[in-house]
């Protein structure tokens, strides 16, 4: 009997033999979700103040926290550049801030590897709040008190969103690792 590949060993995802991950799904789902997250908020219309969470960044951080090691550390460059095309920020701000976020989380995780849901939420919260404030700082206008007051609802909404986003990412992660019948 041929040696079974480690990828085909049985786990809770597959109770049947001859099933394997789809590489397409496994490698594209996180990126597609993050790209979609960058586009979607721009379709909502807001003329007074920012009110939607920066979904692209939110999903980036959620994937990074829930599946460490899946996204390479340099992924802030391409994904941030894509986000810049839709976010309204000066081009380059997404590349810079997303890269910094990836480096910082990697660094923090190497020093304090023990984690639970609340720590995850705390990391997410500090990442999002730092991001929103830095994004305001590099938005090309002089930040005033009014700007800070204006981003408060957006910040609060983003922070409270984590449990839902974490669940959503987990569901998509399951889909990502779904096994399909392979003919070999």
């Amino acid at each position: 009997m041929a040696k079974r590949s480690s990828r085909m060993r049985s786990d809770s995802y597959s109770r049947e033999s001859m099933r394997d991950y789809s590489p397409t799904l496994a490698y594209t789902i996180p990126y597609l979700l993050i790209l979609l997250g960058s586009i979607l908020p721009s379709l909502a219309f807001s003329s007074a103040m920012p009110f939607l969470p920066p979904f692209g960044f939110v999903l980036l951080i959620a994937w990074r926290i829930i599946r460490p090691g899946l996204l390479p550390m340099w992924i802030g460059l391409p994904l941030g550049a894509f986000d810049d095309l839709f976010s309204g920020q000066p081009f380059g701000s997404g590349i810079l801030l997303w890269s910094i976020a990836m480096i910082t989380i990697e660094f923090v995780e190497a020093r304090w590897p023990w984690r639970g849901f609340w720590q995850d939420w705390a990391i997410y919260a500090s990442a999002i709040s730092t991001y929103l404030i830095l994004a305001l700082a590099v938005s090309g206008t002089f930040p005033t008190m009014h700007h800070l007051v204006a981003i408060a609802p957006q910040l609060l909404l983003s922070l409270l969103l984590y449990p839902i986003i974490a669940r959503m990412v987990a569901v998509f992660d399951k889909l990502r690792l779904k096994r399909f019948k392979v003919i070999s």
Partner: protein
Amino acid sequence: MASSSSRRSGHSRRAQFSLFTGYVAAILGAVLGLALLGLSFWQPQWAGFMRGAASDATEPAGQTTAVTRSRGQGFIDSIQGYLRAGSQNSKLQEEIEVARIKLAESEAISQENARLRALLELEQIDDKPVVVTRLISSSATSARRYAYIGAGRSDGLEVGMPVRSSRGVVGRVLEVGSSTARILLLTDSESILPVRRAKDEVIGLAQGRGDGLLNIRLVNLGINPLEVGDMLVTSGTGGYYRPGVSVGIVSEITDEGALARLVADPASADYVAVGKIWVPEAVIAADSDPGAPFEAGPESTSEEGAATQETGQ
């Protein structure tokens, strides 16, 4: 739970090296981002072609959501009207609101006429909009206030053209793609618009405050003549906007002027009209040589306004 131990480098040279290259690649990415950000501050419009292509590509989705948005609002409005006194009520109220704005605008126009008659030199300017289109997307996550409209270079749009809805000024075209254009909304904190009170000659500058309100700074310092409820219209200085289009209503008096609420909230506008630049010569003069003597009074300030809107990014 600790994160999976396989990701800790430990004593493996290979793992240490890959972690190191990861850091190097990410830091290089951040440095590149910083450089591009610097370029964006220096030349705000350089990435415009990419943004244009991106927004052209997502235009169908934007058009769909725009239609859904206006239908949804109509639906909510009619439910509200029915709950009060039938859907007619809400329609009539809307009409009265528009009529009030129109009344204030006509006051401004008659004022304008009186001034023009005094000048005697009259010139007919074609006032038909270049194109009527929808607002398809906006910067809903950023602190800056931009929007995209579903018309671009192929419809004859140019940078600087004023955008208005049926109620009043919405913003100004900032970048033009092939089928979409990026506009700077009035509420953005880099948008400065010369305004005057509809009923007389009190002039000022309306600048977005970043939270949806307009900050009105009066040009002539002294006793603040503004009152809550005053209608502000474009003054026409700067050359971009036709004079007498409604901009905002004063909602609070401040030391240097007032705070105003927008008359034309773009979020509730079905369609917007893009017009021609009112006096292109004035815009060219203001852009080409800001130091040049440019006649008296308000123009000197509007130059600043026009220049800021031009580079505002």
